[in-house]
């Protein structure tokens, strides 16, 4: 089965066809996705700002990172299923052809790996042994990666 056939099968499955027939379902799912966007923004920003020496700058980085991680996971639990449902609704007629969608998926994979491997390690490390230049660089890379995810995500929704 090709990728396109897979997208077709998903989009025209009985469940998704039923979902599409209601005009309320799609905007409601999109709204919940936006709530996840807001939350992930907060959970990422507090840590990245802290790494840049802004925001909660009197707290240890590791503590801010640990506190934020729980809500980062919650936001992903909101974003991933609602994102998946939006993809499934128009997989074959829209997403399959959309460069912005595939760029978003690539950026998302990179952002997730970077956040949970590199940034996590840097944030949890003993601060005194960490060169502040590295912390700032990690924050900037994190912000760039997630901005790419957000902007390409926004492009998917444009006419």
């Amino acid at each position, binding site marked *: 089965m090709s990728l396109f056939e897979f997208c077709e099968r998903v989009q025209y499955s009985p469940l998704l066809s039923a979902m599409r027939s209601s005009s309320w379902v799609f905007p409601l799912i999109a709204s919940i996705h936006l*709530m996840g*966007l807001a939350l992930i*923004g*907060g959970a*990422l*920003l507090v840590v990245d700002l802290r790494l840049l020496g802004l925001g909660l700058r009197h707290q240890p980085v590791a503590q801010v990172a640990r*506190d934020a991680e729980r*809500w980062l996971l919650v936001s992903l639990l909101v974003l991933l299923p609602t994102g998946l449902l939006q993809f499934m609704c128009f997989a074959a007629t829209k997403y399959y052809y959309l460069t912005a969608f595939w760029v978003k998926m690539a950026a998302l994979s990179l952002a997730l790996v970077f956040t949970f491997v590199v940034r996590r390690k840097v944030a949890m490390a003993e601060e005194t042994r960490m060169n502040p230049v590295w912390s700032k660089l990690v924050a900037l890379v994190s912000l760039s990666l997630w901005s790419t995810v957000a*902007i390409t995500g926004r492009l998917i929704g444009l006419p």
Partner: protein
Amino acid sequence: MSLLLRLCEWLATTSGSIALHESRYMYLIVLSVHVLTLCLFVGTAAIVDLRLMGLTMQSVRVSEVMTRLLPWTAAGFLLMIISGALLFYAAPLLRYQNIFFRAKMVTLVLAGVNVWVFHNTVYRRVAVWDQDPVPPRSARVVGGLALVFWVVLITLGRMIPYQVYWFDCNRQPQPAIVNVLAGCNTDSR
């Protein structure tokens, strides 16, 4: 015809409004800024609200979380208001007669009242509970209410463009309640 409606009708005839409405990219850029600013505005506000509910950063003083994060929230709010005002300006009449837009503005005022009441009552005595991992019930209620307001605001905002499918003034007949809530001008028909 109400004064507000006439004001919107006049706004819609100004060249800036028409230019924004008919622009190829500008409107979409403003819209995208409005949506993505959710991360900054609601994102940082949500962290503060969660701290007020005792659900995050329990070892950090509440006043510390607020002084460090609220400037970012305020910056986000400013961007939201500017981009939101431009989105209104691009289609004043359409927004004015939009049930979701109207409900969103009411919710925005209620959210503002919640913040105002908090700063003038519960937060006045913050010194007493600043260090508490879980703040007193009044603070938790304010935090929880704020989160509910953000959820409602986001949903109503997302629904604004869907008005045309459901309760558009230009698609009559509509139930009387819809015409009242959307402020449809039905006399001239």
